[in-house]
């Protein structure tokens, strides 16, 4: 032990080689250094920095180009040449005085420096004085005997300050004098340069921007700084490429972190650098300009970037600064593969709100605009909502937006009086077999129940039998009908406006569903009716749809008996007799027992159920199964069914469906399907039963959602709507202020959608689905009937000669239902109320008929208010225009109205008197009705410029702006003339 202690300090006793340890230490230090360098490099090497670098190049090129163009424009502009020549001249003249001016400049600089020194001196003295004042006050406070001495020192300092102050003043004056002398000499040049500057402002701004972008335009120091500031490590100070300057801290919208709300910070613009700037439309992403700057991002757009950011509409992780961490989502598996290749993208699993893929972006609109039925610019969302309404999704699935909507299908209360059990059985089994575009979905013969066809046939039959047995008697108003003429009926269906809501037999459906073609499917397609029901039933239905189905949306067209009979005759001429040719299967006791047991057993034991079944007749079993099956399949979601008037919908709620956890969506064995909610929705809509594939399920547990056979465009639209059904975020809801106007417009829009006003009318710039049918009618029916009339009467109304020159579009417009855009500004609310309640004929030349909807007062008020609020017009009370029939203006009005002047009655009907001398397609509404119908101020605007209100109208513009009035009355004052005409017009109705 002793010698060990002795030698312990000696290095040669060590068992480890110092040299080797040193080498290992050196190596490990190097490894450590390398790891540190790697750490800094990883921090430095970011996607966004690369993007910002390349964007600078793009911006540089764009600016150079713009500058060159601007320079060219200036060079060719005469004002520029003149001004720059003048500047050059004056500068040359000034050059003569250079030595003198230089000397003056030297003097001024000297004075400036002296002033600087003096000012600093003064400021230092002031600071001393302030400090001294504090000491004096403090000494006083502490009753220090030194207070007086300090006070004296302070006084002295104050004196010094005022002396130094006056020195500064003197120097200031001196400097000003010198500067004034100089500017006086250079005034002419400065003025000329300023003038030139006004012309070259744009170029100078571009040049300024370029000077900050283009290293070759920088001086050595700036250029050095420009390089150094972005080097690794140095970029901690004030880098050009950074996140801070580009991110958007969204005003007023925060991010919900469940336990807290934090400011929403969108860093998308760190890479999407050109998103809110015009001129980068031709660039690839991420530099591309937003496709719609007028609606989004622009300062004057309704969604400015600073207030909305990006993620409030698009979703995604705003704080992410890499392609993956921003939670980008591909539009298709192909794009996903592409992204993986290009950006190393993978789905960001741990983010609840990933970005919506491009095709579903419009779902974001719904987060704020959930009250609206139509959102401007969101075509896909609008279509999706329209399909949801048409298909009646809300019948089975609760959707907050549609709470309280009436059922979408026809009533089955009196089904026995309408169809045969045999037809109903086949219809239930295969609706598409009867009408390939029906909105009745398919429940049977689907992928998950075609293997139990024997059973489902029994099910279908049991339900039909239940409906038939429970069907209540329907007292039809007419027990017989006049003999109808199918040909006349054909003409009627094409003339009255049926095509606003129905597709007629023989019409082809467009390949892709659009909102316009959907409007024409408001009612069922009118094919095969002869095989479905009787002519008498159709006759009664047409005469009064509400008698059969009080909640129907089918309006009353006020058909005469003959018209109704003709139409019915035409409709039943379409037959599809092979559809329901075979009788339904006979009820099978065994199958019915099995079905009945499924329903009975949870409530009783199997033995009890079997016993109960033994006492039941076959019909009773069928009845029992039918009623239970109707509940299972939820038929009452769409149809009014006896015994199920108040049944609750069977589907899962769709409120907040977009936020539903992915684990709650049963993907079944569809492992190839991406585990994303919209992929599931798409699949569910394309084949609602697919997720049963490969699953072992009892018939009663199988998926029940029926197949609507939606086409891809419709699926895409519906999924857009579904992705919009999110948990309401109060902050986002607030973005759309709940003004009375908006509330009434939304309510009215919803009702207009329900009533399908846009099937015939253009409303708020959209609609008029019947337009093409009107064109068809003009071409094929009107021409024929006119020709036959001509043959009959031999009378020439001018139609024949003008035919060649007639503008087809204008003609179609003349025979189309009126455009209701701006209707609220045009008509008086009271009149509109009464018109909607009981339509009267305004345009007798139209064969199309405004139907009677039998609206409730509530609905009438909603629509009336909707029109007025939409046009931002007073509602409900409007003042009446008072007409003094004794005034000179009134007399002038009458004269102007007369054939000798403007000849208004040449086109307008007046008090039922149809115009003479103009063809029917030039006719215009009855002016005698104007006083009750139109708003006085609207007439004035209309007269002034009809095209502005209704482009393409045939109403002439009498008072072209800047031109003299066409008539000399009332001193040729257009405004007074228009008022006079209006007053006269208003008196027409009153006097008659």
């Amino acid at each position, binding site marked *: 032990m002793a010698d*060990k202690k002795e030698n*312990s300090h000696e290095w040669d*006793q*060590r*068992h*480890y080689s*110092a040299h080797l*340890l040193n080498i*290992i*230490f050196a190596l*490990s*230090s190097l*490894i*450590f250094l*390398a*790891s*540190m360098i*790697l*750490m800094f490099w*990883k921090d430095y090497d970011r996607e966004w920095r690369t993007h910002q670098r390349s964007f600078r190049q793009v911006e540089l090129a764009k600016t150079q180009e713009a500058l060159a163009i601007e320079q060219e424009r200036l060079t060719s502009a005469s004002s520029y040449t003149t001004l720059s020549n003048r500047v050059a001249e004056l500068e040359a003249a000034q050059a003569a005085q250079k030595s003198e001016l230089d000397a003056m400049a030297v003097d001024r600089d000297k004075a400036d420096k002296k002033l600087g020194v003096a000012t600093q001196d003064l400021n230092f003295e002031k600071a001393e004085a302030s400090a001294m004042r504090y000491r004096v006050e403090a000494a006083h406070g502490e009753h220090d005997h030194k207070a007086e001495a300090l006070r004296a020192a302070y006084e002295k300092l104050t004196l010094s300050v005022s002396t130094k102050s006056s020195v500064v003043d003197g120097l200031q004056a001196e400097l000003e004098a010198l500067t004034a002398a100089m500017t006086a000499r250079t005034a002419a040049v400065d003025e000329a340069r300023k003038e030139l500057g006004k012309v070259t402002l744009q170029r100078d701004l571009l040049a300024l921007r370029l000077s900050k972008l283009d290293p070759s335009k920088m001086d050595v120091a700036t250029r050095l700084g420009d390089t150094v500031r972005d080097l690794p490590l140095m970029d901690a100070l004030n880098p050009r490429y950074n996140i801070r300057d580009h991110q958007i801290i969204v005003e007023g919208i925060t991010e*919900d*972190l*469940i*336990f807290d709300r934090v400011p929403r910070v969108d860093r998308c613009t760190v890479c999407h650098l050109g998103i809110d700037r015009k001129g980068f439309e031709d660039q690839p992403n991420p530099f591309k300009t937003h496709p719609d700057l007028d609606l989004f991002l622009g300062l004057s757009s309704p969604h400015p970037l600073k207030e909305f950011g990006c993620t409030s509409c698009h979703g995604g992780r705003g704080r992410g600064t890499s392609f993956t961490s921003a939670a980008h989502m591909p539009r298709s598996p192909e794009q996903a593969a592409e992204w993986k290749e290009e950006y190393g993208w993978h789905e960001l699993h*741990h*983010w*609840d709100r990933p970005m919506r893929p491009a095709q579903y972006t419009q779902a974001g609109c719904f987060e704020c605009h959930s009250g609206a039925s139509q959102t401007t610019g969101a075509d896909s969302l609008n279509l999706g909502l329209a399909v949801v309404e048409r298909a009646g999704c809300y019948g089975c699935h609760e959707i907050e937006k549609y709470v309280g909507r009436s059922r979408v299908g026809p009533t089955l209360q009196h089904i026995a009086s309408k169809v045969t059990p045999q037809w109903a059985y086949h219809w239930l089994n295969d609706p598409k077999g009867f009408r390939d575009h029906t909105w009745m979905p398919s429940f049977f013969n689907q992928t998950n129940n075609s293997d139990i066809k024997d059973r489902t046939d029994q099910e279908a039959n049991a339900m039909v039998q239940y409906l038939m047995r429970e069907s209540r008697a329907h007292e039809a108003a007419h027990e017989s009908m006049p003999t109808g003429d199918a040909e006349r009926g054909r003409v009627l269906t094409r003339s009255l406006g049926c095509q606003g809501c129905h597709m007629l037999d023989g019409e082809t459906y467009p390949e892709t569903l659009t909102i316009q073609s959907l409007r024409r499917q408001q009612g069922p397609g009118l094919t095969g009716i002869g095989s479905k029901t009787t002519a008498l039933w159709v006759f009664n239905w047409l005469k009064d749809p509400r008698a059969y189905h009080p909640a129907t949306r089918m309006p009353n067209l006020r058909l005469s008996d003959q018209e109704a009979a003709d139409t019915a005759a035409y409709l039943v001429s379409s037959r599809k007799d092979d559809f329901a040719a075979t009788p339904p299967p006979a009820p099978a006791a065994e199958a019915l027992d099995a079905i009945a047991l499924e329903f009975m057993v949870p409530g009783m034991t199997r033995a009890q159920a079997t016993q109960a079944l033994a006492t039941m007749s076959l019909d009773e079993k069928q009845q029992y199964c039918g009623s239970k099956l109707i509940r299972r399949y939820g038929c009452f979601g769409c149809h009014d069914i006896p015994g199920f008037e108040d049944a609750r919908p069977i589907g899962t709620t769709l409120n907040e469906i977009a936020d539903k*956890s992915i*684990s709650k969506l*049963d993907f079944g064995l569809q492992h190839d399907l991406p585990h994303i909610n919209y992929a599931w929705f798409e699949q569910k809509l394309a084949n609602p039963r697919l997720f049963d594939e490969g699953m072992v399920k009892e018939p009663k547990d199988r998926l029940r959602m029926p197949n609507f056979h939606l086409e891809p465009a419709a699926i895409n639209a519906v999924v857009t709507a579904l992705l919009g059904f999110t948990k309401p975020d109060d902050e986002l809801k607030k973005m759309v202020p709940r003004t009375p106007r908006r509330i009434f417009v939304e309510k009215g829009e919803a009702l207009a959608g329900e009533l399908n006003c846009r099937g015939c009318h253009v409303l708020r710039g959209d609609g008029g689905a019947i337009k093409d049918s009107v064109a068809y009618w003009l071409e094929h029916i009107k021409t024929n009937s006119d020709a036959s009339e001509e043959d009959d009467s031999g009378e020439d109304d001018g139609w024949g000669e003008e035919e060649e020159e007639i503008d087809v579009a204008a003609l179609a417009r003349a025979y189309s239902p009126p455009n209701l855009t701006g209707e609220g500004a045009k008509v008086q609310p009271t009149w509109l109320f009464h018109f909607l309640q009981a339509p009267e004929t305004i345009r007798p030349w139209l064969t199309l008929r405004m139907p009677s909807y039998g609206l409730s007062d509530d609905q009438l008020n909603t629509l009336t208010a909707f029109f007025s609020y939409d046009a931002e017009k007073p509602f409900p009370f409007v003042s009446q225009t008072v007409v003094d029939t004794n005034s000179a203006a009134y007399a002038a009005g009458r004269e102007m109205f007369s054939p000798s002047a403007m000849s208004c009655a040449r086109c307008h009907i007046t008090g039922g008197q149809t115009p003479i001398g103009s063809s029917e397609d030039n006719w215009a509404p009855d002016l005698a009705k104007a006083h009750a119908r139109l708003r006085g101020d609207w007439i004035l605007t209309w007269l002034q410029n009809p095209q502005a209100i209704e482009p393409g109208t045939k109403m002439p513009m009498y008072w072209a702006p800047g031109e003299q009035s066409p008539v000399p009355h009332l001193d040729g004052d257009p405004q007074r003339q228009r008022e006079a005409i209006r007053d006269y017009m208003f008196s027409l109705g009153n006097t008659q």
Partner: protein
Amino acid sequence: METLKHLLNLLSDPRISFPILMILFFFIFPPTAWFEKWNKRLHFDRLWTPVGGLVMHGLMLVALVAATLDPNFRLIVTKPDNVPIVILIFGSVYFLWLSMRQARDNDQRLEAGEKPDEYCDPKRRDILVWPDVLYIELIAMILCMAFIIIWSLYLQAPLEQPANPALAPNPAKAPWYFLALQEMLVYFDPWLAGVVFPTLIIVGLIALPYLDSDRAGSGFYSFSRRKLFISLFCFGWLLLWVYLIIVGTFLRGPNWNFFGPFEVWDAHKVVPMNNVNLSELIWIKLLHRPLPNSILLREAVGILGLLGYLFVLPPLLEKSALKRFAGQMGRMRYGLFMFLSLMGLLLPIKMILRWTLSLKYLVSIPGWFNI
């Protein structure tokens, strides 16, 4: 290949792997002379030779690489959360091997009548704290830092979305070092699995060296001189802790269901969970009569069994099988040792009873006491 994967999936089920490992364990770490005899006969001691170590590590590495070819295995193993556990497996095996190799060397030396290596190798006998030990430690620290930095750069922290109490992840897993506790929760109520057992296991592992009164093996690595205590310690450490962490990390999926290493983590996997209490087993299944109304009568077998296990078994053993052992240790030490060991053994016993008899509780007095 698929058959092999399927076989491994089956084998890794704790119901199979745990009993196998438990039996195997005592042959690898023999607690008694009998086991030691078999250990030698089966050549398990060769695991601790350099060749054995190389083969063991090599096989583990090859198995890992080969298994990562399977997408499901890869998904689980490469999860940033789980990578440390892979390192843990290799680390535990390596350090176990290192110490066991030294122990084996010394045991052979002692058998040959030599002194342990620690007394002969000057490098192990006296090392300079400064500069050698501190220098080596400094180098180790630097390398460790470099390793952690590089690891953190290439395998980034698995950050997730803002926590939402309404949306718990499935499976909800504890941090890796608590996964053994979470695994115990499957078999015991929280107060036992979360409080009593961990405390006893930790206290027991700490106490083991102090319960060993034999000084013959002190001061150097040796296995044969203190085989019982090393064996018990390794049992608590390797089987009741590390093994359960591995199971919890790699083999427990959605709904805490068991998934083989090559199986898809299907959230919809259904397994029967029909567990019964001991009282039901005895009264209904065995005696074919309804459960008695009296709680004490109903649970009598469980209560008596448990009391017997903890308080009657030790004195009985003291008088019989463990007579010599108890005499060496002294009453106090023996009592403490038996209590800790029996409590520790309760966990594997309960696990095995669950798997074999679907046993839910030995004693079940709802609202008051369940074990």
